[in-house]
């Protein structure tokens, strides 16, 4: 029995009547399809789901979802979603953002949403480029990227979104790939289940301005380091490679045959500190070699909106329901006859 009255919804129930206007071949199509397909699993009626976005190609996402939605302003979606989630704990609130939206103009809102642990699910479509403004480098573009505003190469050291989220003490951090429907769906499932803020970086190919940016992991599957909780980290065509922790707390790629399975790092999503997850995130600062995907961290921490609700309930318990006349007359008063 689902909460939507027993009617099982399907992907097409989540498609709005709007024509999708991304460039043909854009990775966003695959993500949209995966999300629409996953939505029925939430077990919620459509009216209780809200998608909020900022500005950019990814930000058109809410228009295509048959849920409540808001296409807001550049970088501010986490702030708007926070206000909505705090005042409406009954809703399932999702933010769709991009690398420029979340990490450049909206960086401040992102890190604060993550540290607060508000019940909002943030999907960051990372394509390492500004697509909507037609091809300027973004805060995730690799150093030396040559494009419209950097004819001699970009000078900015890029952000690693997963490392940033972990640094901001996010309680749920994951990474997936636009075209890997099964993996992306599983990550969405885990994100939805997580109490508090969930951060999901999705490698998304911009075939017009930055085609092939993620081919190292998108196409060469042997480079995908699948993270699985409680298991030694192994990858490669035959699982012949692995990850080991070094004395300086960084991680390195090793040949399993050389070091033995016992030397491998065992993945622990629930570690109380994000240190191990950060070491994994830094295995590939930009994905040009073996790159971890999956859930880096899934830790428990009190959820902001629940704490706020508890304070409201406690105030009512201790002081009784608010009484306006009593409020107005509080303190020293005097009466003139």
């Amino acid at each position, binding site marked *: 029995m689902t909460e939507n009255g027993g009617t099982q919804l399907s992907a097409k129930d989540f498609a709005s009547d709007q024509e999708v206007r991304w460039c043909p071949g854009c990775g966003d199509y695959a993500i949209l399809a995966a999300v629409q397909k996953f939505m029925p699993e939430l077990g919620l009626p459509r009216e209780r789901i809200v998608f909020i976005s900022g500005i950019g190609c990814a930000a058109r996402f809410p228009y295509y979802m048959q849920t*409540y939605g808001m296409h807001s302003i550049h970088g501010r979606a986490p702030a708007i979603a926070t206000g909505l989630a*705090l005042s409406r704990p009954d809703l399932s609130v999702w933010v769709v953002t991009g690398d420029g939206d979340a990490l450049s103009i909206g960086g401040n809102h992102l890190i604060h949403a993550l540290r607060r642990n508000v019940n909002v699910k943030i999907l960051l479509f990372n394509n390492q480029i500004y697509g909507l403004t037609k091809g300027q480098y973004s805060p995730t573009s690799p150093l030396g990227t040559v494009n419209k505003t950097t004819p001699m190469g970009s000078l900015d050291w890029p952000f690693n979104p997963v490392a940033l989220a972990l640094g901001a003490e996010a309680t749920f951090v994951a990474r997936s790939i636009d075209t890997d429907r099964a993996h992306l769906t599983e990550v969405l499932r885990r994100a939805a289940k997580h109490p508090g803020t969930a951060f999901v970086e999705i490698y998304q190919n911009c075939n017009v301005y930055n085609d092939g940016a993620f081919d190292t992991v998108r196409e060469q599957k042997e480079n995908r380091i699948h993270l699985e909780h409680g298991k030694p980290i192994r990858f490669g065509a035959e699982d012949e490679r692995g990850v080991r922790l070094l004395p300086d707390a960084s991680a390195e790629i090793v040949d399993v045959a050389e070091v033995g399975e016992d030397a491998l790092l065992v993945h622990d999503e629930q570690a109380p500190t994000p240190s191990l997850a950060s070491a994994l995130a830094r295995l590939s600062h930009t994905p040009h070699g073996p790159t971890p995907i999956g859930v880096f961290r899934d830790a428990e921490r009190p959820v902001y909106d629940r704490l706020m609700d508890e304070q409201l309930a406690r105030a009512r318990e201790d002081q009784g329901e*608010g009484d306006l006349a009593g409020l107005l007359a509080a303190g020293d008063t005097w009466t003139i006859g």
Partner: protein
Amino acid sequence: MAKQVEQLEQVTIRFAGDSGDGMQLTGGRFTSETALVGNDLSTLPDFPAEIRAPAGSLPGVSGFQLHFADHDILTPGDAPDVLVAMNPAALKTNLRDLPKGGALIVNRDAFTGRNLEKAGYAASPLEDGSLDEFHVHEVPLTTLTLEALKDVDVSKREAERSKNMFALGLMSWLYHRPTENTIAFLERKFQAKPQIAEANVKAFKAGWAYGETSEDFVVSYEVAPAPLAPGTYRNITGNQALGMGLIAASVKSGLPLFLGAYPITPASEILENLSRHKRFGVRTFQAEDEIAAVGAALGASFGGALGVCTSSGPGVALKSETVGLAITLELPLLILDIQRAGPSTGMPTKPEQADLLMVMFGRNAESPVPVVAAATPGGCFDAALEAARIALKYRTPVYLLSDAYLANGSEPWLLPEVDELPEIPVEFADGPNRDGEFLPYVRDPETLARDWAIPGTPGLEHRIGGLEKQDETGNVSYDPDNHDHMVRLRAQKVAGIAADIPELSVDDPDGASVLVLGWGGTYGPITAAVRRVRNGGGKVAQAHLTHLNPFPRNTGDVLRSYHRVLVPEMNLGQLLKLVRAEFLVDAVGYNQVRGVPLRASALADAIEALL
């Protein structure tokens, strides 16, 4: 020997001392005592933005002025009759405001070589004859306080810190203020530290006793209660009134209040106040910045809450983009701007009215927003209700303007009857509104407000956003005619609010040819100036705007019916510019940007010059 008692009609007292001397607390308590006597009163706290500038220095001086009377008054007084100066720096910065013959009470103990030097005095003003024109009471406040507390178990430093209560006790005796509430207040405030409570109460009583026995004070004064309208009163500041007004708007509309805010002087107090009222279902969210604060408020509005953010000029400047989004989303949102002197950081604790044009026009493109302004501290309550009413009825962001003077200044406030407060009905859409479908931009033909469906409403799922939208459907549209239509619709909606607000009323008992037109927080000084002119036989009319966008529908007619129109403002002529542009009236300005309220006497002179 029984001391002589003199009756006064009104008194203005200014307490001035170092930031660490507790002058705000002292002034606040004297105000509460005065309110209980039943005097009409008006206060002006005046403090530096620095929490504690170096002790004894000129920038560290903090003051609190209180005007009270046996009749209805409107301002905290142009100049004090009595100045209490706790140290040389306080004397130096405040003496220029004390008229000749005024009473001066100084803490003689503080006039040491070091303090005199810090205040820039070459010689002690107590000894060089420079205070001969004033009636000086030199009181060894520190010594007397230490003496009074010698049996109380507190350190010398703690004992010294009670000297403000000694001064309060003395002033309370001098003006026949009741003492019980202050004693109760001190016991409550220092509940956790009984020795400190005892020290403060003892110092307070010792100050009173000093007045009674010292030969320096031969006369005490009574100010009879003012004949205020019957009812129950409390003393209230503008910021307190705004907080209560917002809660009242929440209760009357049935929408939970959500406040997104980032601390900023002089607005932080509203966030602090509202955070204590969770039992009303109030959610306060201290955001990471000003942009997140308004964003969260808008997100809450989208979900069906009464979304509010509170800030001051520099913070409001950061909110422009989100306000633009709220305009096009057509969602209710309140933005409270507690104006302070600028530009930039300016003078954070000092009042100014120079954000009017920013809230009118400080956004990209055609983006009209209704503007409401509070006129008095108590009027902040009504302004909050009115701003919420407009926002919710017309689905629009609304700016509410207050200022640092209204925010911190206080006056007696007649408690309204809760049942008589206006209802704020809000109806959410609950079903299809056009041929079996829900279109988010279908409007009420009268108000032009769009239908508002909130998440959680089955079948009405829809998307809204910052891109231009097709009329009715809300779908993204780049059609030229549609954009022209939508721009005009949004403008018409705001302009149409004029039909739903009171006409501008004019106070013109004598058939004057000169009108004084004010707005917002200058109501007190302007009204006092007008009274002054009339008492001198001059004929002058007065009107005061609390709705700045749209203007009341008769504003043009009112302005054109006078020969001369004077617009006093604490800016360089912002309302003046608007009325000249809107109504083609050759109004003239009276403009002061000194970071202090307008002075009624100087304004009266300016009015008389026009008659």
